[in-house]
């Protein structure tokens, strides 16, 4: 057993010092791993807590309070109102923009938790980590976001260590991983990125969302709420671009996209898109199996 790295929490060192392994794998996944020649060596995890919220003068979110936060490169679109001067409160101008500080902070939180998990894996002498699960939870009202990344560290029988000492990682485990290998793909790492788009609604968007786009009670025909549709498309586009930039020519397999939006009143909203997947690389030529034979089960 190699000496654990000195900056791991003490509890982790104690856990690794005992000979038996723990693993987050289910029994079928465990069996499949052994079949593939992967020996589970331990359950590894990493945490990172980031400040996340409206508090503090230096909080990154403070910049999100005014419509002048955009213009730092990245996505931005402006919308001009079609009416003449109406009143001082009339929102004659609106903007969608990318909140890159939120994206960077998320990336930092995820990245730190991920590297800490890899440190634990390296301490165990592992080659890779399978069955990775990552979550980000807001802790109550404290205005913090906790990133937690964990998985099962494995050693490949009779294989040399991973290049550069970095274990390969994947969300997959068990049969799905086996099928991935048989199909000719090798997992390189998990990939995750977030995009955050802020919508500052202009008058038309606000009216359409609140249904007040009518003159004297006579309903106008409906219309597409282009500003929000644009922002939604952009959020997804940006998340894909972020993940692609992590691929370096490899492919993304088994991706999952989760989009949430937070309404901030008066038609304003914030859209967050999280995209996760497995970065994989082809290691043998494309060699498809023949069309599978269909069966009907009598059960």
């Amino acid at each position, binding site marked *: 057993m190699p000496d654990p790295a000195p900056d791991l929490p003490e509890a982790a060192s104690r856990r690794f010092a005992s000979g038996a392994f723990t693993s987050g794998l289910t029994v*079928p996944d465990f069996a499949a791993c052994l079949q593939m020649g992967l020996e589970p060596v331990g359950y590894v995890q990493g945490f990172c807590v980031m400040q996340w919220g409206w508090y503090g003068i230096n909080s990154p979110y403070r910049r999100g309070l005014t419509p002048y936060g955009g213009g730092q490169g990245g996505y931005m679109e402006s919308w001009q109102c079609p009416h003449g001067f109406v009143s001082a409160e009339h929102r004659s101008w609106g903007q969608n923009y990318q909140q890159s500080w939120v994206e960077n902070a998320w990336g930092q939180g995820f990245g730190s938790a991920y590297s800490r998990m890899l440190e634990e894996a390296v301490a165990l002498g592992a080659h890779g980590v399978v069955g990775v699960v990552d979550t980000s939870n807001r802790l109550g009202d404290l205005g913090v976001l906790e990133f937690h990344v964990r998985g099962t560290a494995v050693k490949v029988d009779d294989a040399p260590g991973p290049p550069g000492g970095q274990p390969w990682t994947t969300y997959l485990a068990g*049969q799905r991983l086996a099928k991935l290998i048989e199909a000719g793909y090798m997992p390189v790492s998990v990939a995750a990125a977030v995009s955050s788009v802020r919508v500052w609604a202009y008058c038309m968007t606000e009216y359409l969302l609140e249904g007040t786009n009518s003159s004297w009670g006579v309903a106008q025909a409906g219309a597409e709420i282009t500003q929000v549709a644009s922002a939604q498309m952009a959020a997804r586009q940006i998340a894909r671009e972020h993940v692609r930039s992590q691929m370096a020519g490899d492919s993304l397999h088994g991706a999952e996209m989760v989009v949430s939006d937070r309404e901030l009143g008066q038609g304003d909203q914030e859209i967050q898109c999280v995209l996760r997947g497995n970065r994989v690389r082809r290691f043998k030529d494309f060699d498809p199996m023949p069309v599978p034979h*269909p069966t*009907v089960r*009598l059960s």
Partner: protein
Amino acid sequence: MTDTPEILPEGLPEATSHRLAELEHGLFTSDLSVNEFLLIKEVGFHPLGFVMGSSIYHTGIQTRKWGQSQELTKLTEAMYNARELAMTRMEEEAAELGADGVVGVRLDVNYYEWGKDAAEFIAVGTAVKAESGVSHRNKLGKPFTSDLSGQDFWTLMQTGYIPQGLVMGTCVYHIAHRGLGQTLGSAGQNIELPNFTQALYEARELAMTRMQDEADQLGASGIVGVRLEEKSHQWGSHTIEFLSLGTAVVKTSGEVTLPTPTTIISLDN
């Protein structure tokens, strides 16, 4: 366009005629999954269209604490008629399309908050027709109905039996409230409650017998896939509807083409 029977005074809605006309001109719709679609084709049938029938029926009762367990015949009739109306309209649509039968029939009951004491009974399914052109309609000359899935339909056809119709029997039974004296007397003991036993036995038997009668009318050899459902709908727990559903089948003169199945052991969960 065939005449619709005088169920709805005004006839089926206009939208229905348009929709069925499109289906008659060659477009098919089906709510079968791709698996089921392919299996139907395997046994020489082709889907014609999604067919439906519905009826909103008043189903309320004035709940009273009757001393005796008894069938609430008016309510039984209501539940039966409502479903019959829905099924008949669905069959009308299928007949309009020239179908041999309807597979994958689903009977649903919907409640809406604005319709107090009322429920909507819906029957939906996919109308199918034999590609050979040979009629597979049932003994009464009407399209057969069945709640068999595409897989079950395929398997049944391999055995040399063919569906005749979805048969159902229903019975709405009220279970008497036990008197206070009786309740106190038997508290804490593990005894049979003869009231309940008798009531539930009788109710289920009634439902199944009625279902059997329907199958006899169709000249069926037997009923497959029998299901017993028990629901209290909106009446409180002492009034229960027992619904018995199944598909009546009849043996065709054709040969049995059932292939020998291969046994496998699948290694997934």
